[in-house]
């Protein structure tokens, strides 16, 4: 699967055949009657120093994928190799040790910050876990971290509620940075912010990436944001990867009918550009009993008989573009 161009880059995280099925209990005895197939057999690689984005609509499995990598939920099966070590095969304590390399920033910074802890306590805790900086130097280090994310040293003893949404997200980023991670998973990290603040945080994430050679897995439903921040983009639909490509190729030349519809559905902020729109019929089907064959066939404008029975494999279109569609073979 690894192509010429990709093999030059060094893989940081390799996800193979990852499945995350959540059981549904029911019946008289509360047996497991079915599963929500939130993520169903996906494989992808993140290379060092890049930003890979996962896009898709609610229920496509993008956030579940992020959580499964971090083992916030235990995946059903598959493997996740981080620098050659399988995270899913690790014991709980080994995994705790690995966590400092893999940090996460969530959508709602307020919910993920303890309201009773001041900024210095929040960041101090992270430094204590990481335990590289000696206790005496930690306050200095915290001030340094605040500087990286654009907060002032005098804000060090304030509490989360004294900050605006954008500033809280900066605290979340500083906390992640404190661990000196290699990979940061940003799960809808800017989705709750107003555009003017969102732009500030996006710029910050980009400059930190350059400064600290960070790798991002960026999970978002906002294609504009994704286009801005990503090197490569992976599109998911109902627990499956439908397309992975470098940013330019994906946005300029989307191959999968779902990607095409998704891109055309976004209103462009320019009243003079009236684009042709592909409007998909109906809703996303339930991940409990997903459609057979290609999961998109129930809404696809190009669906053929074959799509109803045969699951399309992810195949390479060229070096950096893979798509799972029977039309593109």
């Amino acid at each position: 699967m690894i192509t010429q161009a990709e093999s030059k880059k060094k893989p940081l995280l390799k996800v193979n055949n990852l499945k995350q099925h959540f059981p549904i209990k029911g019946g008289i005895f509360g047996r497991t009657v079915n599963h929500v197939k939130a993520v169903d057999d996906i494989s992808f690689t993140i290379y060092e120093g890049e930003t890979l984005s996962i896009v898709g609509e609610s229920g496509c499995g993008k956030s579940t994928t992020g959580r499964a990598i971090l083992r916030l939920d235990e995946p059903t099966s598959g493997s996740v190799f981080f620098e050659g070590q399988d995270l899913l095969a690790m014991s709980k304590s080994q995994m705790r040790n690995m966590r400092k390399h893999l940090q996460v920033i969530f959508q709602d910074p307020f919910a993920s910050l303890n309201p009773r802890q001041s900024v210095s306590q929040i960041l101090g805790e992270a430094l204590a876990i990481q335990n590289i900086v000696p206790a005496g130097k930690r306050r200095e280090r915290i001030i340094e971290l605040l500087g990286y994310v654009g907060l002032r040293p005098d804000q060090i003893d304030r509490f989360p509620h004294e900050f605006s949404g954008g500033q809280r997200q900066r605290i979340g980023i500083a906390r992640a940075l404190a661990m000196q991670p290699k990979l940061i998973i940003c799960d809808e990290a800017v989705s709750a912010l107003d555009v003017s603040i969102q732009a500030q945080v996006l710029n910050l994430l980009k400059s930190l990436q350059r400064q600290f050679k960070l790798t991002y897995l960026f999970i978002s439903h906002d294609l504009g944001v994704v286009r801005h921040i990503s090197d490569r983009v992976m599109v998911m639909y109902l627990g499956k990867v439908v397309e992975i490509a470098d940013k330019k190729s994906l946005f300029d030349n989307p191959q999968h009918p779902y990607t095409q519809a998704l891109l055309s559905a976004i209103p462009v902020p320019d009243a003079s550009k009236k684009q042709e729109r592909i409007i998909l019929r109906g809703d996303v089907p339930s991940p409990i009993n997903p459609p057979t064959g290609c999961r998109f066939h129930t809404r696809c404008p190009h669906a053929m008989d074959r799509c109803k029975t045969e699951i399309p494999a992810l195949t390479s279109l060229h070096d950096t573009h893979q798509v799972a569609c029977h039309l593109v073979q």
Partner: protein
Amino acid sequence: MFVYIIRRLLQMIPVLLGVILVVFLIMQMVPGDPAVLLAGEGASAETIAKIRTQLGLDQPIMVQYLHYVTDVATGDLGTSLRSNLPVFDEIMARLPATIELALASIFVTIVLGMIAGIISATKQYSWADITIMIIALLGVSLPSFWLGLSLIYYFSVKLHLFPVAGWGTWQHMILPAITLGTGGAAIVARMTRSSMLDVVRQDYIRTAKAKGLKETVIIYKHALKNALIPIITVVGLQFGFLLGGTVLVESVFAINGLGRLIVDAIRMRDLPVVQGGVLIASVIFVFVNLLVDVLYRYFNKRIDLS
């Protein structure tokens, strides 16, 4: 829903077995030998041994338990030591009064509590709200025997509005029902208030306003049905306290109910009656809980999905 009820009924079997076990253990733990008690003072060792064999008390404890379970399952709760009548019949003679009292009290709890709670919620921070909440606080803190005695003193002895004691007519019911229901009403009032306040902040209430509906329609049609869910839970819990409370209230008002039967039986060391009474009360409580859960599900169908 049907599957759910079946499942709940099946789940009740171990609960009931547990209840029987606890009640059975009461018998074991009480000091004194039932055979000695039954034989009467000055009975010969021979008689006592005979009685013991009759009662099966010489068998291992597990066997005794199994016997007891089988007896209970066939409706045989033993014989009262005092009256020599079957305990089951004794209880059935007293149960109607207790159930009437419980129902009347829960009616007071629900009606009084919800009306007060709704008024409080719709007029938040008004004088009415503050007054109701102070009364509710008092209502929770008042001991029921004190309230009962006070009610008897003012309404029966001084004003002659209601009979002092006894059971039979609706006039008899009012004071005991108020005595027993007030504590619950206070709790229901507070729950109704907070639940209603929570519901009126919901988006669908704003939608109802944007439709042009009247305040009263919004409160009683759109808000109340949603607010009921936590209220039902509280009412269900109250029913448990209420069953316990009947013991006191029946004593204060001299009502021949189950509670008083049990109290008298304890005093007379009539253990089979105590055992049977506690068992029946527990079974009622378990069934009321089931009823509450079914209602809860009915009003909150969204739970069915998860």
